């Protein structure tokens, strides 16, 4: 396919969903008003001592357990030194020598091809402050400083932008499922450094690596990688040489550019953090945390296919959001018709939620009501257009489907006497079409069924209407 093979590795930083910061008890995730969640520790004031947020450690360990990492029963913190006003201590507390989780892997699927992406390690660290560059000064809000972060570092196992996005999507899905992070990209919960290189096809040695720093949208990552891989290949094809460098993505221009050396001239000089003793975990605690893990998306998809007999597509849509999956299961428990439940949830429900910009938690239609609605359709009490009308009412204000059907007079007319009457009226009013049908034009019948539906104001059972018309026209 190509003369060069790309290798992509990701460093994914994820803000953990905790109430407090990593190393102090200030509230985490304080947005809006600047500098209202600060204390001597996260401001880096002299003499302040960090303490570890146990919940953050628990969440990072749970990520490790989900991807099959080896959990370090003893891990340590290190100082990563750099001088930038977003880090008031002049170092970030991170883990280098002995991170919390070692190894692991994530399964991805692109174009029907399954692939295993290996993870090198996951470590615990703290976020930097938010910095705004103005005309003549830079202003800093330390609310975000020391927000718990986990950094997951993959091996360079991805070979296309699509695979990189598939990895991030699978990871995000797991993290949301397990309540590790909300993974809201707009709020900067997930940020990536993207490493890439290309090597001549048929060779093993990785090419010269370029790192694109601080990417915060999946779309941006895809575009940046497409550009960057092409740039590297073009350079080599033209006989040029690549240098290992740090680049940034210019989203407007659609190009990656080398960062000025000043922006990343760091010499991190890691050394053990003397203010924090090692983290030690016992195997029983780790096992207890493992027991708290929810069913993961891949397992849930497999179960939906097996237990509810759903197509793979349905299982994928329904399990993409754990809340939707839960709603489906709650409804399916009250219903005999799993495929119909799936169709209603994937179709009408997701559409209606999308239109209102609501989540399933806001939905007024109870799972029992949806199940009852499906039963009314299956019993032919109402037809599909009427069912959709009832659905909309249930969605807007809740309630009980049978009562709404009665109130709105939506019950399907299956009374053959009434339908016969409508059929006679339709034929009488459309003699020409009736004649066409008698002359062998089968499609003409559909027009007449439409007329019966109209006369019955949508309530006739269409199958019975067709039968009645056929009897009268052929009789």
């Amino acid at each position, binding site marked *: 396919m190509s003369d060069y093979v790309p290798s992509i590795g990701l460093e994914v930083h994820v803000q953990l969903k905790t109430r407090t910061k990593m190393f102090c008890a200030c509230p985490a995730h304080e947005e809006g008003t600047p500098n209202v969640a600060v204390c001597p520790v996260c401001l880096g004031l002299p003499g302040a001592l960090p303490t570890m947020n146990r919940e953050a450690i628990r969440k990072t360990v749970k990520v490790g357990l989900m991807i099959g990492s080896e959990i370090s029963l003893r891990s340590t913190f290190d100082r990563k030194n750099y*001088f930038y006003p977003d880090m008031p201590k002049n170092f970030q507390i991170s883990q280098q020598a002995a991170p919390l989780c070692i190894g692991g892997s994530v399964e991805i699927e692109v174009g029907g091809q399954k692939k295993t992406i290996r993870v090198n390690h996951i470590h615990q660290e703290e976020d930097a402050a938010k910095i705004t560059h103005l005309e003549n000064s830079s202003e800093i809000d330390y609310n975000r400083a020391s927000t718990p972060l986990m950094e997951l570092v993959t091996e360079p196992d991805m070979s296309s932008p699509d695979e990189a996005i598939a990895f991030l999507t699978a990871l995000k899905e797991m993290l949301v499922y397990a309540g590790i992070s909300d993974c809201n990209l707009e709020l900067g919960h997930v940020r990536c450094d993207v490493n890439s290189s290309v090597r001549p096809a048929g060779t093993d040695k990785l090419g010269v690596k370029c790192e694109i720093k601080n990417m915060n949208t999946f779309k941006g990552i895809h575009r940046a990688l497409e550009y960057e891989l092409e740039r590297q290949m073009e350079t080599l094809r033209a006989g040029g040489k690549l240098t290992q460098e740090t680049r940034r993505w210019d989203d407007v221009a659609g190009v990656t550019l080398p960062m000025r050396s000043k922006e990343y*001239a760091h010499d991190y000089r890691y050394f053990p953090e003397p203010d924090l*003793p090692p983290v030690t975990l016992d195997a029983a605690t780790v096992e207890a945390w493992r027991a708290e893990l929810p069913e993961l998306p891949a397992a849930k998809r497999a179960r939906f296919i097996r237990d509810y007999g759903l197509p793979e597509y349905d299982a994928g849509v329904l399990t993409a959001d754990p809340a939707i999956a839960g709603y489906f299961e709650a409804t399916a428990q009250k219903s005999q018709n799993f495929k119909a439940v799936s169709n209603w949830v994937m179709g009408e429900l997701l559409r209606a939620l999308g239109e209102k910009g609501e989540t399933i938690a806001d939905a007024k239609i109870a799972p029992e009501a949806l199940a009852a609605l499906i039963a009314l359709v299956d019993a032919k009490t109402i037809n599909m257009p009427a069912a959709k009308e009832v659905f909309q009412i249930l969605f807007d204000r809740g309630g009980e489907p049978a009562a709404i059907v009665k109130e709105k007079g939506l019950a399907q007319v299956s009374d053959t006497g009434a339908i016969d009457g409508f059929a006679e009226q339709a034929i009488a009013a459309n003699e020409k079409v009736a004649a066409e049908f008698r002359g062998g034009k089968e499609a003409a019948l559909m027009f007449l069924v439409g007329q019966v539906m109209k006369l019955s104001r949508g309530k006739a059972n269409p199958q019975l209407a067709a039968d009645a018309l056929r009897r009268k026209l052929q009789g």
Partner: protein
Amino acid sequence: MAMKFSENADRMDARYVAGLARMALSDAEAAQLQGQLDDILAFIGELKQLDVSGVEATDVATEARNAWREDVPEAGLARDVALANAPLARHEQFAVPKVIE
């Protein structure tokens, strides 16, 4: 920029380190600090001569483990108190000389 160093280098450039810390050094200060850095590294070099092959590595000197804290928020500093120490504050934020061009 001047000579770099790594953790294993036996010499450290005082001006390079000062550059990373955005500190301006006079020639006299640079010379004095360079001398001190050289002395410190020479001492470390002496320590490196010792045979420690039979000694288990120590990353902490105390027996303390797990400086845990439960995930319960507490009030920190009031904003005006926090900003009082800043050389310059604007828009309720800490203001510093612009750090990118």
